[in-house]
């Protein structure tokens, strides 16, 4: 099946710090162009380094998993045993499915070789000889770009039996998924790559000890792995200095979505003020409306109200202090004409659809919550339903194999707690107070 390739639009803002997006729009899909733009220099440098040196450089950078969990990347690599009787693997998670997250797409589309280079360096650091790049099934045109990039790297001798003439071997395989949010969870991702249903595994053992095909496995998000080459080339300290402190190093691709005047993907330093991100980078809220809520990083995160959003800084610490999460980089602005019951319902509809059904609290909880929210939005809610929904959501959180149960619970809890008044306005057969303001109108803006 032939896919039609239309380049994804790029955005820009003067406050951006372009480390991983510096080659966007520069024709870096072409391997020679990539090389001319400092490409594969970091891999050559890593070949001269000791494995521990590479890992320590990544540790010093403060790089944390960009998929959403924010685990320290260097630390993750250091968990891989030095000696292993079975092969070790690098697995790149390109099952980008967290609602509002559309950044990995741009990296694969505009800079596929940076991912290959990152995988090679990760392999050198942990002693793996094979890497897998797993892309979600919907991203077929990206798979085609990635496959070509891998083939070109083989042709240049950057992959294969003797990479860069070093006498060392490294191979990369690309792989397509077939539509499943749950597969973005690392153990479910391995199950899927092994040709099974994407059900999460019981941990421990963690992937670093027993992962893909039973071997020690590093699993990193596309953006995380693409950040590795500039770190190796310029040093961990150089990268860390872009962020506010060593635990919040560097930059990240921030996807501004929803009610922004200038939605788009921007590379912003960690610790960037959210207020500036909303009103300056994102150009504020359309139609002279006010911000009501901000989803900070994918629909699995706690939603912020306007005051919180305007005082937040976009780093791990600000959110961790509140017991919340910075998330995946997928920001959604929600304006004051939007019904929060409808938002809660749409979010829950997604998790109900994507729950794999393995754990009862998640399978039953998402279904029950969706049904209650449907009834509520239709004006047939009861007062006691409000606390009942909170009770259900609180009982899902922390009681499942993987984080999908938490992901469904957290936004729901925050919406009910912060916008309880909107739920009350739907009670006793009253129609939704916002529907007249219509999203249809907004679509025409």
């Amino acid at each position, binding site marked *: 099946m032939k896919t039609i390739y239309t380049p994804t639009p790029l955005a820009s803002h003067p406050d951006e710090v372009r480390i991983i997006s510096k080659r966007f729009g520069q024709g870096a899909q072409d391997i020679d162009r990539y090389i001319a733009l400092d490409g594969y220099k970091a891999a050559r440098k890593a070949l001269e380094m000791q494995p521990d040196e590479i890992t320590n450089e990544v540790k010093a950078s403060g790089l944390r998993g960009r998929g959403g969990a924010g685990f320290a990347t260097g630390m993750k690599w250091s968990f891989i045993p030095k000696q292993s009787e079975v092969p070790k693997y690098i697995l790149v998670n390109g099952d980008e499915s967290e609602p509002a997250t559309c950044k*990995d797409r741009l990296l694969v589309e505009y800079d596929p070789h940076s991912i290959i280079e990152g995988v090679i360096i990760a392999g050198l650091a942990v002693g793996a000889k094979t890497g897998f790049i797993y892309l979600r099934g919907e*991203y077929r045109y990206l798979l085609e770009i990635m496959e070509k990039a891998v083939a070109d790297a083989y042709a240049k001798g950057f992959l294969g039996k003797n990479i860069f003439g070093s006498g060392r071997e490294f191979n990369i395989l690309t792989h397509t998924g*077939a539509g499943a949010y749950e597969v973005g969870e690392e153990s479910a991702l391995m199950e899927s790559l092994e*040709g099974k249903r994407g059900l999460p595994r019981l941990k421990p053992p963690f992937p670093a000890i027993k992962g893909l095909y039973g071997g020690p496995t590093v699993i990193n998000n596309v953006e995380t792995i693409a950040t590795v080459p500039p770190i190796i080339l310029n040093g961990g300290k150089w990268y860390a200095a872009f962020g506010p402190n060593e635990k919040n190093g560097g930059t990240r691709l921030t996807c501004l979505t929803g009610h922004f005047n200038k939605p788009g993907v921007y590379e912003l330093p960690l610790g960037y003020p959210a207020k500036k991100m909303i009103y300056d980078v994102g150009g504020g809220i359309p139609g002279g409306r006010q911000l009501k809520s901000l989803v900070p990083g994918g629909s699995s995160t706690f939603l912020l109200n306007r005051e919180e959003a305007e005082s937040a800084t976009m780093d791990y610490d600000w959110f961790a202090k509140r017991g919340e999460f910075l998330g995946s980089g997928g920001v959604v602005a929600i304006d004051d004409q939007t019904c929060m019951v409808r*938002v809660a319902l749409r979010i829950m509809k997604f998790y109900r659809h994507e729950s794999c059904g393995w754990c009862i609290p998640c399978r039953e909880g998402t279904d029950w919550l969706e049904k209650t929210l449907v009834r509520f939005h239709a004006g047939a809610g009861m007062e006691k339903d409000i606390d009942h929904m909170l009770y259900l959501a609180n009982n899902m959180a922390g009681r499942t194999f993987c984080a999908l149960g938490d992901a469904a619970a957290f936004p729901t809890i925050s919406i009910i707690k912060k916008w309880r008044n909107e739920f009350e306005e739907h009670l006793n057969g009253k129609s939704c107070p916002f529907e007249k303001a219509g999203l249809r109108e907004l679509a025409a803006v």
Partner: protein
Amino acid sequence: MRYSAELEQRFQKLVSQYPWKRSALIPLLLYAQDEVGYLSDEVISDIARRVDLTELEVRNVISYYSLLRTKPAGKYVVQVCTNISCMMWGAEELFEHCKHRLGVDHKQVTKDGTFSLEEVECIGACSWAPAVQVNYDFHLDVTPEKMDKILDDYGKKAGQ
């Protein structure tokens, strides 16, 4: 089961490239579906044989993944994302528009077999909402007017 020479070659490569043969299963199913249109009983039994699994094991995997289908779809599968970022820009209304325009509901096929319609979850095009995928082609910042034009274009292609 006979596939095109190109697909057969791809299959041979897939079943031999992974440490475990079974890893080829999901790509095999998706590529077969792209060519045949859906995963017929014949395709399922053929693929099961190629990766040394039972048909039941293969069906068990198929039912998990939302892109895989065991019934024929339209030549062009119109997938409208209505997840949160797209919803903010009128995706639910856009999906309603498609329903009226095509005269079919979620997961139904038009009488002439040209289109099927699906409401889908996030397709990772959130900054360019609302987003629609037709087969594997992305269409960004779609309005109802733009949608009509997109459907017209695919309709013309189907007629050729």
